[in-house]
């Protein structure tokens, strides 16, 4: 299918960006999908199962990623960053319930410059065979961010096996040649590559685009649990975050889905919710919305993996508001998961185990629960570069730090800048169903602008 003449830019290749790009491309418009990492997939690719249906996350995500990679209307620009955006014209800020009236600069376009970072791999030649990574001198020495540091990879890598595109990338912060200027007597990766794809002469490139609409889908970060030092994260290896637990329990993760801590299966597992969330001290006064349900899911996964484990979930409130969520919470409780009301105060070591101190507020007494594994449900926070991205696009931020929608109820995916829309957690914490719904709404709004723009132009 020949793309229609109008194009959209989607920034961020997580599930929000993927869904928005597919919807717009399916309608016949050209889409540039820009992703900073070497692969699309985002946070959802890191997850094990998804609540409340327990679908395997990568099983439902991978087909969409493949669709993006193969779509004739999508120009997928991974390992790339938007560096400048010039809007058509700056009209009056539109704090109204509808976009600017007809007759605005509908014919105008955003001029966007994208920087394609050098992969040092010719993607046209790379077949994704992985012989380079197997040969790399840094093999097993570079922290894998995708696996949350649980395993180490090579300096040349794909973030995960289902990556799209399945093309290798040289990590410029870890490659001996790129950091030290020399890598032994010969490049082991180059010698190993049967396709001759590795090219250390590669330079960054700049690509200029003209688009009629932009969808921002830049996602979220998780709070560093060291901001709550009472929980001992970073001190005790048995204290981990929810996203680390996802990698640990994932069948495609570093332990192939075996929940192993300190070389053994934990017998007592404690989950602590609201770590950083609902806590103005940490700058997160809001509820992170996903933790209640993913903690219930984690508890289920522990039960599935370790049938005789004692599982305790500490909670302040249980917020199971979505479709099928309360039912899932019920199911997990029937699986002998003990919910105890009280936000733990401290974690410390006693012998070879950890002790979680809390008050069981329903008993009205202080308690100690021993644990071999403590999982912290860390707060969803804006990405660390959110202020730079806001400045780049001329977006406002709400008091919680996330991007501000044009109206909290009636223009939930619009922004103050006509033609720029929000999707997913860059606007605030949300789960996958809400993210996908919002992505589809943003795509629909973007297509409205693209369609009006085409109509207004002479053929």
């Amino acid at each position: 299918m020949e793309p229609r003449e109008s194009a959209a830019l989607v920034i961020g290749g997580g599930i929000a960006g993927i869904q928005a790009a597919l919807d717009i491309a399916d309608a016949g418009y050209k889409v540039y999908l820009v992703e900073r990492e070497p692969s699309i997939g985002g946070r959802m690719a890191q997850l094990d199962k998804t609540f409340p249906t327990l679908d395997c996350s990568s099983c439902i995500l991978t087909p969409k990623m493949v669709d993006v990679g193969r779509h004739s209307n999508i120009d997928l620009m991974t390992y790339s960053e938007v560096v400048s955006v010039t809007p058509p014209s700056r009209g009056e800020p539109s704090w109204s319930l509808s976009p600017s009236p007809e007759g605005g600069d509908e014919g105008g376009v955003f001029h966007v410059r994208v920087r394609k970072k050098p992969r040092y791999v010719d993607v046209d030649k790379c077949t994704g065979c992985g012989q380079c990574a197997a040969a790399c001198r840094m093999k097993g020495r570079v922290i894998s961010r995708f696996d949350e540091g649980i395993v180490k990879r090579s300096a040349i890598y794909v973030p995960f096996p289902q990556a799209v595109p399945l093309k290798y990338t040289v990590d410029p912060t870890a490659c001996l040649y790129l950091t030290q200027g020399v890598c032994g007597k010969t490049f082991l990766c180059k010698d190993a590559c049967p396709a001759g794809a590795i090219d250390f002469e590669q330079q960054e490139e700049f690509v200029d685009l003209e688009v009629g609409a932009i969808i921002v889908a830049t996602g979220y970060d998780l709070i560093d649990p060291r901001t709550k030092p009472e929980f001992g994260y970073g001190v005790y290896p048995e204290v981990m975050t929810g996203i680390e637990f996802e990698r640990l329990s994932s069948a495609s993760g570093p332990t192939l889905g075996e929940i192993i801590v300190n070389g053994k299966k934990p017998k007592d597992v404690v989950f602590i919710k609201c770590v950083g969330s609902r806590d103005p001290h940490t700058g997160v006064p809001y509820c992170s919305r996903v933790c209640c349900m993913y903690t219930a899911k984690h508890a289920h996964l522990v039960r599935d993996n370790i049938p005789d484990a004692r599982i305790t979930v500490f909670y302040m409130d249980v917020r199971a508001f979505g479709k099928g969520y309360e039912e899932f919470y019920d199911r997990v409780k029937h699986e002998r998961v003990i919910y105890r009301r009280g936000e733990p105060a401290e974690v410390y070591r006693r012998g070879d185990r950890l002790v979680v101190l809390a008050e069981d507020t329903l008993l009205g007494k202080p308690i100690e629960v021993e644990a071999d594994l403590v999982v912290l449900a860390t707060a969803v926070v804006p990405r660390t570069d959110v202020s730079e991205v806001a400045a780049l696009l001329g977006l406002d931020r709400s008091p919680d730090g996330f991007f501000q929608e044009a109206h909290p109820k009636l223009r939930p995916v619009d922004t103050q800048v006509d033609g720029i829309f929000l999707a997913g957690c860059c606007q605030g914490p949300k789960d996958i169903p809400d993210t996908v719904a919002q992505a589809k709404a943003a795509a629909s709004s973007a297509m409205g602008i693209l369609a009006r723009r085409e109509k207004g132009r002479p053929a």
Partner: protein
Amino acid sequence: MALKTEPMAEELELFGCIQCGKCTGGCPVARKTVLNIRSLIYQMLVEPEMDVSAHPELWDCTSCFTCVERCPKDVRPAELIIGLRGQLVESGRIPETIGAALMGIFRQGNPSGMAREDRAAWVNGTAVKAAQKGCETLYFVGCIPSYDPRVQVVPRALVKAFAAAGLDFGTLGTEESCCGNEVRRMGEAGLFEMLVEENSELIRGVGASRLVTTSPHCFNTFKNEYSLDGIEVLHYTQLIAELIEQGRLKFSHPPNLPERPSPPELGGTGGGRGKIIVTYHDPCFLGKQNHIFDEPRAILKAIPGVKLVEMDRNRERSLCCEGGGGRMWTEGTNLEERLAFQRVHEAAETGAEILAVACPFCLLTLEDAVKVQGLDDRLQVMDIMELVEMAIDDDE
């Protein structure tokens, strides 16, 4: 005595409490007495009246402020205890020993009721001058360091170190009075205000740009509860760390410990040879409440021959010694299971031969606990300044 709950609930802004229980969960004394601050807050919110005198456990609180530090909603639970104690103080229903401490402060400016004119007796020949108008640093000694024979070594060591570093400093001599930190926490708001007024005038009168204290308790109230506009308030660990960092205070040799208590089979070095293994106990008023964790450790690390080891519960997770908030003058409702007992065992487990402290109360409570627990053959409690003094040359 029936207290109408609503006015105090409003004054202390208790309405934001979400009853998460993090306060009681982390409260070190809630584990051994019936004190439950979360439940007290709830009662304040839902009951029209509270019989305050039915809660003798209010005197168990050490005002370590772990609850205040950790409350996600800024409720400041310990302030409710202070407020309720205030009700008891007003009606005179307080433990006799608390009354005596308050009276001593009112009459003599110190909780032991020792004579005011003896306040500078700690000097004992050390060169200390009265603060001159315009001197750079005013050194506030504090009550326990002034009068308690065990603690008096700390101010003496401090002034030696100040002199060695060439610091321009002076003290208030016998004019110095209790800072009021514990007075406020015992609920005697009126006496506290009086002390604030008198001390502020005295301190401002000196015109020093810096005020340094022996005790984290004095430091806390001067820094956070007085308004000594323009005067920088420091705990001594901050100042000593700064003097070391600037090269003004130099160590010449490892501390000359008179005895090395820790025999090698207990993990120590024994016999006065090798590294001195030291662990450090974070005082609540310095660590948790004022986030000064690094300076005391920097001092210990700078002392030649000292190896610093950490207890499992350190920094923000340090365990209260149970000496604050008036607990030096009342036993509370459970005197058998002292937190200090638990703490000295934690210190001994590290293999340290010295448990270093930076607070007069911690020095007394932990030293007592070491004796009671029979650990004195392997563990000595010392103030950081005692180690510093033993590692600097006297003639400097």
